[in-house]
């Protein structure tokens, strides 16, 4: 399995995506900083406490990387059908389910890791910025940080699995655009709302969706050995 994942990474030059992660991070940070300055000019604050800050940053990060994951899915999975390389891949003496599982795992792990790193990076950048700008009044205690780290881990894990739901939709007609559109719909459903009052902040909802995500990704690769390999 590890070997199959390595081959996928080599095949799709996954290292190139690191650049994408860095750029995405800088854009998120730029947005937040713009928000901070913009609201400060009006004498109202985008966020005044660290709890609020982390809520907003994690929402941004989740939204970004769920769509990033959808792009990866359409490249790694749907793309193989589109370019017909699947016809070669499935004539190899390798279990097809394992090949597909390797692809899904790469997407999930990639999403999980980049969500965690980005949360930490953006949070840390804001902390540094705050030292100079002092836009957040309360102090960052160890308690808040510990709670936040646990939060980040749980949410990233859940959302890494939710990110796989678009794979199921995309696989139906082997369509990259329906993959990405599904991701966008999920993102807007889960993350829209005011100041952290979003669906995804009710912890039970992401967890249920994560279970659905795991189940759907099982469904999308269940019959890969039995079905005709059809190219659209």
């Amino acid at each position, binding site marked *: 399995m590890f070997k199959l994942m390595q081959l996928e990474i080599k*095949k799709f*030059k996954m290292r190139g995506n690191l650049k994408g992660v860095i750029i995405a991070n800088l854009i998120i940070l730029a947005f937040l900083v713009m928000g901070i300055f913009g609201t400060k000019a009006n004498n109202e604050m985008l966020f005044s406490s660290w709890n609020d800050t982390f809520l907003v940053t994690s929402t941004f990060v989740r939204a970004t990387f769920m769509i990033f994951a959808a792009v990866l899915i359409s490249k790694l999975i749907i793309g193989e059908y589109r370019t017909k390389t699947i016809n070669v891949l*499935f*004539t190899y*003496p390798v279990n097809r389910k394992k090949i597909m599982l390797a692809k899904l795992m790469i997407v999930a792990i990639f999403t999980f890791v980049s969500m965690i790193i980005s949360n930490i990076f953006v949070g840390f950048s804001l902390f540094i910025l705050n030292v100079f700008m002092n836009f957040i009044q309360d102090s960052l205690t160890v308690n808040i940080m510990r709670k936040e780290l646990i939060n980040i881990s749980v949410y990233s894990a859940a959302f890494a699995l939710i990110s796989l739901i678009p794979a199921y939709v995309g696989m139906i007609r082997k369509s990259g655009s329906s993959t990405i559109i599904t991701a966008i719909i999920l993102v807007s459903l889960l993350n829209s709302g005011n100041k952290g009052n979003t669906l995804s902040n009710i912890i039970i909802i992401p967890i249920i969706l994560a279970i659905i995500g795991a189940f759907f990704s099982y469904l999308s690769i269940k019959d890969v*050995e*039995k079905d*005709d*390999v059809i190219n659209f």
Partner: protein
Amino acid sequence: MNYILRTTNLLKKYKDKEVITDVNMSIKKGEIYGFLGPNGAGKTTIMKMMLNLIKPNSGEIEIFGEKLNNHKSYETLKRIGSIIEYPVFYDKLTGRENLELHCEYMGYYDKNAIDEAIRIVNLTKIDNKAVKDFSLGMKQRLGIARAIITKPELLILDEPINGLDPIGIKEIRDILKMLNKEYDITILISSHILGEVEQIADTIGIINNGKLIEEVSMESIRENNTEYIEIITKDCIRATYILENDLHISNFKVIDNTLIRIYDLELSQKDISKTLILNEVEIEAINRKNNTLEDHFLNILNGGKSNV
């Protein structure tokens, strides 16, 4: 007889429409099997079924004496090399990277094999060049290199000479012959270009509308490969009279009102034309002709049509 691949009563439907009907093919070990048929006849579909990419609705495929099975045919797949439809690659990677990837998936770790395969198909100067910058001819060569890299026992090649120039076609033909002779690789090659298959195949399977119409060895085609003299004349009735009475030829056939084919080749073309002219039969053309595979092919396809 030792068969490397057999299909029995292969049937495939797409939405109640039968695209492959009752196909029984037998490929002998060590031969080159030419798979002929017009575009859309079902060649690719059958080849995909052989590679387990498409599942038949009914019927069986037996390769290397074992039934092709959904889950347990990995060992069989290891012994087959293939190109389906047209050669596809991960086109951001270089040719060599693609071949390396192929070896990894096939579980084949002979480092020299890649160089050897590249050398066999005569692909030079491909290093540091992404496959997306390859010409179609180069992709075909790379595809063949990929198919033969693991020294398979059976090669399944779907239209491998599409997009090649005449020199390239000859080279590929020589390569396939060489692989067949020296490495004892059985080759199934599909094409709609008759002349090409005719030159390398030992057995020909002709398919049309999803049905295998004929499976015949080239040898027997060559045996039946009648030579004849063809005369085109306006005065057909008079000509036949002279052929029968003056020249005593009975084995001839009037194709239509202006065309006569003489299968009795004892008399030379010169004698025939001389006699006809002396008897004032106007000859527009007289030729010695060969019944080629093409005639055979067209005969069969037309025959199939008139039966329907």
